[in-house]
């Protein structure tokens, strides 16, 4: 187990007041909150911050943590001293930010022994949430998928362990990114005779090079040769539902969209599929093609920078 320097994580000296700690936490938390930040390591950083704050804002936990001395450095191998926690009474009211289930081993070893809150008899189990990645094609056709979820569970001593659980889930046709699928009774187990909680799966699409979904509408790029755009063409293009024949009107320009009504994600009403036209330039890499470009230059009285000044 690696030591964590909670002061270093919050960027405050060991002499910081409770107000300093709070201020430092808030500032960093706003920066790294996963709902706000798009930094790739935001979730990891935020977890660390929450854990550091949970310890340093609590005078009992902070005093106990301080007692280990200031010689420890982040990343050093660490075992809690045998007399750890002696003489301290943790009230156990607050295991800190987050669900309390995603703390590091280090935190769990030091503070994880507290009672996990009184359990009321016959209480409904907790609702659980998880994210589920699916392909856009699954939303078009519906699908059956097996997923494995890691659920935190408490052992007899109140320590957190992770349990792997496999679920076979039907993905309804027409589901969109950001929507939630509720599976009744698949959440946390109930207490006493209470029923189990529900499991909510938040749907997200796997990144797709070809198609981009926005709600129920789907967008795709369609590269055209300059002559196809200028003269019009009839071409075959892939769509999530299979290839279709498209008529490109003459005089098409890059960025213009063709709407294929009802060919977005199915539903009532279904979404639309937008084909965004782009122009691809053929390379001039032979005598013949260079001559073709030269012939074009001669044939056109064309200044693409006509509107530029200066």
């Amino acid at each position, binding site marked *: 187990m690696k030591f964590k320097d909670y002061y270093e994580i919050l960027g405050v000296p060991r002499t910081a007041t409770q107000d300093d700690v709070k201020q430092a936490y*808030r500032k960093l*938390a*706003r920066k790294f*909150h996963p*709902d*706000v930040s*798009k930094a790739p390591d935001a979730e990891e950083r*935020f977890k660390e911050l*929450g854990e550091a704050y949970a310890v340093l804002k609590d005078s009992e936990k902070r005093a106990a943590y301080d007692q280990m001395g200031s010689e420890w450095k982040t990343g050093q191998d660490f075992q809690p001293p045998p007399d750890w926690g002696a003489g301290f009474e943790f009230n156990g009211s607050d295991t800190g*930010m*987050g*669900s309390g289930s995603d703390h590091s081993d280090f935190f769990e070893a030091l503070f994880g022994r507290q009672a996990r809150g009184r359990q009321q008899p016959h209480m*409904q189990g*907790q*609702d659980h*949430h998880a994210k589920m990645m699916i392909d856009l094609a699954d939303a078009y056709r519906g699908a*059956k998928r097996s997923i494995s979820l890691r659920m935190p569970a408490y052992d007899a001593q109140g320590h957190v362990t992770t349990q792997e659980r496999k*679920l*076979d*889930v*039907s993905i*309804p046709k*027409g*589901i*969109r990114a*950001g*929507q*939630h*699928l*509720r*599976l*009744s009774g*698949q959440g946390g187990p109930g207490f006493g005779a209470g029923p189990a*909680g*529900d499991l*909510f*799966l938040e749907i997200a699409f796997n990144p797709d090079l070809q198609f*981009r979904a*926005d*709600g129920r*509408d789907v*967008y795709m*790029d369609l590269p055209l040769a300059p002559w196809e755009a200028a003269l019009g063409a009839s071409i075959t293009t892939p769509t999530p539902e299979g290839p279709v024949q498209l008529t490109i009107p003459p005089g098409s320009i890059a*960025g213009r969209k063709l709407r294929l009504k009802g060919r977005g994600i199915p539903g009532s009403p279904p979404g639309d599929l*937008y084909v*965004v036209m*782009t122009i691809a330039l053929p390379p001039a890499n032979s005598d013949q093609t260079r001559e073709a470009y030269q012939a074009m230059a001669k044939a056109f009285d064309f200044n693409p920078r006509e509107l530029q000044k200066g």
Partner: protein
Amino acid sequence: MIENEMTFLQGDVVEEEVQLTIVELCQACNAEIDHVMIWVVEGILAPQGETPRDWLFSGDSLRRARLAQRLSRDLEINPPGVALALDLLDEIATLRAQLQCAGISEVRVEASKIQ
């Protein structure tokens, strides 16, 4: 024979098929009833029905309520601040979607390089 057959769980699409009472919403996002009532007053959530007892929240409320819960718990923001943050996050999401539809998802990468 039957043991070998896999049973696939059928779920409800919350945003389309589900309405939640205040108790169900609190349970689903692990929030306290008092907080949800304040969020309604602040306009973060807009249930149907006259009194809290009759309130029915649309499925979309789940996402907003979870976000409100995380922001107020993790960042210690007060309810008007949560309302503002939610509005701004929605606006950012709309702008991002517009960029994505225009095929300009690289903007973010370039912007972060500049920093």
